């Protein structure tokens, strides 16, 4: 069981979350050529170490978050909202959710 510190709700079991995918992928514009989309949709690195992943707190706040996780130890190094505007708003918040 992973325990994921949701930036909005606090630490929760991973069974409340749903795995999204590789958070390092930059999706191309809709009108981009098929080659760019092939790269974004199908090409994945199989990382032995720390990787960025998107998860959704499906049975919680339903927010998409970016989790920095070590694939060898399952250790989670950082978590932030996927939406950059929300991430910066949360960082400025006077009372961020306790991550412990």
């Amino acid at each position: 069981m992973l325990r994921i510190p949701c930036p909005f709700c606090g630490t929760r079991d991973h069974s409340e979350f749903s795995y999204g995918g590789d958070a390092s992928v930059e999706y191309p514009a809709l009108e981009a050529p098929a080659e760019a989309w092939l790269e974004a949709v199908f090409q994945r690195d199989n990382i032995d170490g720390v990787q960025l992943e998107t998860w959704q707190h499906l049975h919680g706040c339903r927010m998409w978050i970016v989790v920095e996780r070590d694939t060898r130890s399952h250790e989670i190094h950082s978590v932030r909202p996927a939406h950059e505007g929300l991430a910066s708003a949360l960082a400025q918040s006077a009372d961020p959710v306790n991550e412990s």
Partner: protein
Amino acid sequence: MTATRLAKGGYIDRDQLLNFTWDGRTLHGHAGDSLASALLASNQQVLGRSFKYHRPRGLMSAGVEESGALVTIGRGDHRDANVRATTQELYAGLVAQGQNAWPSVRFDAGSISNLFGRFLAAGFYYKTFMGLPPFEWGSGTGMWMRYEKIIRKAAGMGEASRSPDPDHYEHAHGYCDVLVVGSGPAGRGAALTAAKAGVDVILVEQEAILGGDTLAQPQAADNLADQIKALKGAGVRIMARTTAFGLYDGGVAGLLERVTDHLAEPPMWMPRQRCWTLRARYTVLATGALERHVAFGNNDRPGIMTANAARVYLNRFAVRAGENIVIATNNDSAYAGAAELAQAGASIQILDARKSIPDAIRAQAADAHAALRTGAAPLMAHGAKGITALDIAGQHAANWREAGKTDCDLLLVSGGWSPVVNLLSHRGVKPVWDADLACFVPGQTNEPLSMAGSAAGIWNDNACLLSGQAAAERAVAHLGGAQGSSAAPAPGGWQGAITPLYEVKVPGRQLKSFVDPQHDVTTEDIRLAHREGYVSVEHLKRYTTLGMATDQGKMGNIIGLALMAEALGKEIPQVGTTTFRPPYTPVSLGALKGRNVGNHFRALRRTPLHEWNLEHGGTMTMAGLWHRPWYFARSGETIGDAYVREAQTVRRTVGLCDVTSLGKIAIQGPDSTELLNRIYSNPFAKLPIGKARYGIMLRDDGFVMDDGTTWHLRESEYFMTTTTAHAGKVMAFLEELLQTRWTDLRVHVTSVSEQWAGVAVAGPKSRQVLESCVENPAAVSDANLPFMGVLETTLKGKVPCRIARISFSGERAFEVYLPSDFCPDIMDALWESARSMNGCLYGLEALGALRIEKGHVTGAELDGRVTIEDAGLGRMASDKKPYIGSALRKRPDMARDNRPRLVGIFPRDRREIFNAGSLLCAPDHIEGYGEGWITAVTHSPALGHWIGLGFISGGHSQWHDKTVVCADPIRKGNTAVEIVSPHMFDPDGERMYG
């Protein structure tokens, strides 16, 4: 072996006499007894028969590592097989039986297989596949199937009940700051120290009472009771009869709490067991150590057990396990028990494999009035059903040689101790071999976790206590955000060094020496595996089945490793150890499933019309998690009669159907139109307010994700419907797009599936039904509400509703959405009106028949492998705008013109029936995957025969003039069919648009 219950001492209640049944005989023990101690006190020596050879087996230990006394507890459906007698608490009326024996464990006809032992050696199963040596005859799977029946009958363990488990179980969740596993000196020290520092502590103990190894020692003036009182006083939450069976990521521990296994008549409301998911911020493992056996001839005979086991029986249960006792050891730990047993009246001989021993230890032997022989070890046990005498080996240079024989009725063995590193191993931390202590000790970990006490290789009680306290200090420091540096005592602590001893043998003497007694793995099996080329410890394990029994190698693994190391000419750490995996001790499947059985196996979703549907004769079926009406049978009707009547009624007059399970999403915000235009493959930019449009969404990879209608309600507000199956997926995808890719779009999406109930009103008279139920009948006129028109209005009784003229059935039809709370009343009104027009209620089966006739697709067709062209909807996709999937749907393979395309299917002989799931094949080529498949079939009331939908390579144009075979080899056989357009009824849609 003559065991005796002592008149005083122990943690038993002599005033409470408990009767129990063992193999049909009534015996008795006391409250506080384990089944093992009660059987021992009743002088029952043969308690089991071994797995392959049916050798008699008795108690080998007093704990979870037990490999001999595996018994079946309970009667009938409550029967529980392979229970270790050592861990089963005694209760009044307990029924226990021996296993793997006929007629009983004392007289077992199967023991003859002992004589054929050579055929059951290592790798027996593998070799049987290859053919039986020496002639290699009878090889192959066919023969194996025959052997298997015989072998399975002869070799085995307890038999499970074949009925459903009558007990119930629970899942529970917990949180704490510090989890302490084990209540021996180290665990108690850790729990008390942590609790006194003000943190929240849970202490789990697998036994019924706290104490751990302290229970094996003589009682010291109620000191233990005082310590337990102190723990409770400090606020430690104590969970006895609870095993931490696994450690997982994020400080999560799996705990099994045995709630009623010790009760004679458990109350109905109590679960038998409770499986806990416990999340701890810091974990202290004070899991203790297990004493090891030594391999020598007939070391599995009843009357041979670990030295510490006899101490547990003596001091905890007040049973002296024998009179004439030989203690064989290679370390200091067995001497304390020698004196205690002597004091209880036994005569003691000690064989110490070490050549020299410290004076203090020698003095302990003298206290026990024991005859002490150094450089001596057990060679072979005598006695058929229990040890009567022992051949002794003496050390001669580097070898053993025969050195006499002695009578005895109990042999206690200590081959050293193995710290219980299992839980740490679950975290992927490899144990490290300590050559001085001759055992694996815990490796280093970065997790918030400490090992304490003998689990860390510390043998001295006081040092164990200190190590527990040090672990607690590290835990408290960690919780406070600091690095703890409390120094723990070093491993070890005996006065004299241990001399490793794994096997005793002398040249030229054949011995049957067991390494893993539960799976009947002998020293010869290990050597045979080595001769046959097995060098990896992981292969050795699988080939010999060493360590694969229910004890998971607790008794035998180290001996096996040592023998393999010897055979390879290596040291033990070079051979390695296998990885321990959860569970530490067996966990019943019932506990793992908890309450998730039967109707609770998965969540159940009911529509607000559920009761209404039932009251009106609906038969329900599962659609995903939803319960939906399947059909509404009138008296005497079969399902076939009912759905055909319902579908006919919809085409003739009108029908009502609960479609609440469709996904509903509110899309709000100034950029709503832009969002819709990007996610649907067809244009949405110019959908007028008050209109709905059917849309198809693709995935990023260009395949169809879902379809549904989206209604334009107001300038910046839409109401989207999805299929029942993909409601959650579409919602999550929209949220993902808005939160990760298109963060600049000002749109909010909200699932409103629960808020709106939906009813389809379909059929030529559907408008009249609506007219009679809305406040303003003119609002639903054809002019006001044309095909794909949307209306927000009020029903009679001022109930707000949303209506769109949408058709899934191919008839003039409306979808009406109502606030969930109001819908049973509204449904009454709709139904009253529909009934007056000879209408009907219809369910999923009729819905299916109607849509198949029209060639409308559902999840059966849109299975994730289908492109928009495959589904025959390619004309809808826009070429003028980019959208999700537009780039990749143009890939060459997806544009292949022989891809499977949606088609309609008629039986060539219209009287024939065929099945969904069948393959479509060319008549001269009925094999492999064929040319396509059938997704749905129905009897078509409109056409008067069976029809189907399916996919076939190239589609209708390729096959319309050819005969195709619908191949269904394991059900109906082959049926000749014709390929037709999927639009099988009213292809121009006159009924729908008119």
